[in-house]
């Protein structure tokens, strides 16, 4: 078991290094950041240009720049944002709580609703329940998230005024004060629902089809032949096996969450990292873009490794590989 864990962690680190290379390289090799920066500050005097370049360290060889960058990055120093003129780590840290709150609520909503719904859909096959579930899944996978968000804002927020339509409320940072809790939850509601939507649909579909296959399998029949109660058969034998494909696609779920959080943050003006990243991209703020993508990538790879390790815990056949 430990061999497997170490192996996966090693692979994760290699992927991380490769990612940092790709991110850094694509920004610095495809157009001199200096060119983009100069028009913002000084006139095109060649001497001043060269001097500025030297000052920013942009004239050094690529590898040196890369090494330097990585060295600071490990200690969470990503340099300064071109546009906002503040240290990037500070900016990111400030926006992080919002994104984390959003992502976690979306994630838990999706899992808590998606998996049991999928399993029950399979057990009560072809019932009304199943048909509604399938309809929901079809819609959730086809409707564009930004559009659903806007529609929900329009009807639930605008016309019916049931939910606030933007922002987080008054909460600052990680923890709300006691008075802030209700409004925090209220603001969190719509964005997390939208975020969870397509992910829930995908999970439901997966759990359902996995469960159907399992219910048909010989070992489930044998468990019944042995005389086990239905409850035991479903939850001990079947569900555990159904978890395997769901975990397998846990990575895709995660990707969906990361994707979705950018869109949801934009639509709901949610002050998180996604919104920060988008601004960075549209404003050509290279250090910011670099840092944000690198961090997201880091997060994604870490979670992927954790999922793989969980996979190994659930399915003993994987450990043997």
């Amino acid at each position, binding site marked *: 078991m430990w061999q497997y864990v170490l192996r996966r962690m090693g692979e994760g680190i290699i992927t991380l290094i490769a990612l940092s290379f790709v991110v850094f390289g694509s920004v610095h090799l495809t157009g001199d950041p200096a060119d983009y920066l100069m028009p913002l500050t000084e006139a095109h005097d060649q001497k001043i240009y060269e001097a500025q370049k030297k000052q920013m360290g942009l004239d050094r060889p690529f590898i040196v720049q890369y090494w330097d960058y990585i060295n600071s990055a490990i200690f969470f120093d990503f340099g300064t944002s071109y546009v906002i003129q503040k240290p990037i780590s500070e900016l990111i840290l400030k926006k992080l709580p919002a994104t984390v709150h959003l992502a976690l609520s979306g994630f838990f909503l999706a899992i808590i609703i998606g998996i049991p719904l999928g399993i029950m859909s399979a057990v009560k096959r072809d019932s009304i329940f199943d048909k509604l579930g399938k309809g929901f899944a079809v819609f959730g996978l086809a409707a564009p998230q930004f559009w659903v968000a806007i529609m929900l804002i329009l009807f639930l927020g605008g016309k019916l005024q049931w939910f606030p339509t933007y922002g987080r409320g008054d909460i600052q940072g990680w923890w709300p004060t006691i008075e802030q809790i209700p409004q925090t939850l209220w603001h969190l509601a719509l964005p997390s629902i939208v975020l969870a939507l397509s992910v829930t649909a995908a999970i439901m579909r997966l759990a359902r089809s996995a469960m159907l296959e399992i219910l048909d399998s010989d070992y489930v*029949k*044998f468990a019944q*032949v*042995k005389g086990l109660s239905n409850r035991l058969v479903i939850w*001990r034998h079947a569900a555990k096996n159904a978890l395997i494909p769901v975990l397998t696609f846990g990575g895709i779920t995660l990707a969906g969450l990361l994707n979705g959080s950018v869109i949801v943050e934009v639509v709901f003006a949610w002050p998180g990292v996604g919104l920060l990243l988008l601004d960075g991209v549209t404003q050509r703020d290279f250090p910011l873009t670099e840092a944000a993508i690198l961090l997201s990538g880091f997060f994604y790879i870490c979670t992927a490794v954790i999922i793989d390790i969980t996979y190994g815990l659930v*399915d*003993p056949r994987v450990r*043997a590989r």
Partner: protein
Amino acid sequence: MSDDIVLKVENLRTHFHTKTGIVKAVDGIDFELRRGETLGVVGESGSGKSMTAWSILGMVPKPAGRIETGRILYHGEDLLQKTDDEMRKIRGSGICMVMQDPLTSLNPVLTIKKQLTETLELEFKEKKESLLQRAIALLSSVNIPAPETRVTSYPHEMSGGMRQRVVGAISISRSPDVLIADEPTTSLDVTIQLQYLKLLKDIQEETGVGIIFITHDFGIVAKMCDRVAVMYAGHIIEQAEVTELFDNPLHPYTKALLRSVPDLDDDVEMLPTIEGQPPDLANTPSGCVFRDRCPDPSDDCRDGNVEMGLIEVSPGHWVDQCCINCG
């Protein structure tokens, strides 16, 4: 009914209601099983052998499948009258089944220990340690070497022969009176097959369990069974003691089946076959189902006028009544 008869099936009909028609998987069969006896059920694929087993266990796939008529008497009680809960209690402790492929019969993500103890739990309300001891004892009774270490392994870590023995151990762990074995040796090597059959026989001697052995292999029938029932298209067309059936087969189908297993000593140029195809179970012919393939049907039979039903021709030897007329 004598005390000796553990299971008695009367006029069992299991039909499937599908979009294309009613498929008569099992259409009126009768047989008995005594204590310590092995009844072989022989027939080609689709003859209704497995569905008979599922009907006895009360696990006919719903909603399409339905047991239309019949009684299944287990220790005198009709199983078809029982509720789901009551059937569940009987499964495993009274009647149990072993399926063809041991790899898929075992849950790949649970240890052998878990799969054994969960069954034992249902029978013996004891502590975990004592259940574990029982599990280990069971494993050694089916000749699994080093059972104390084996018990914590996973199904994919064992060989096919071992897996089938584990499945066998699980199925007899609650000392059932009836064990249904649905082609358990088909996926095993020939040498492993022999070991497994011997194991079953030993278990039967020790516990007196009645075995219904479903197979298409007459060689196994000769080795294992006391009595045989030959099934065709959902009907039992002949039933007798093993030696009697081999020496004196009456139904043309039985004769053809036995003929198709060539003797090693004979000089065979062409393997004998049975002409024709088994009938479509959604459209069975009226009267004798075999009449289209029978080499010498009587006129009455050919027109579909003769009903099916077993007649005792000599003590213990039953054959379908249309054969009396035909030949």
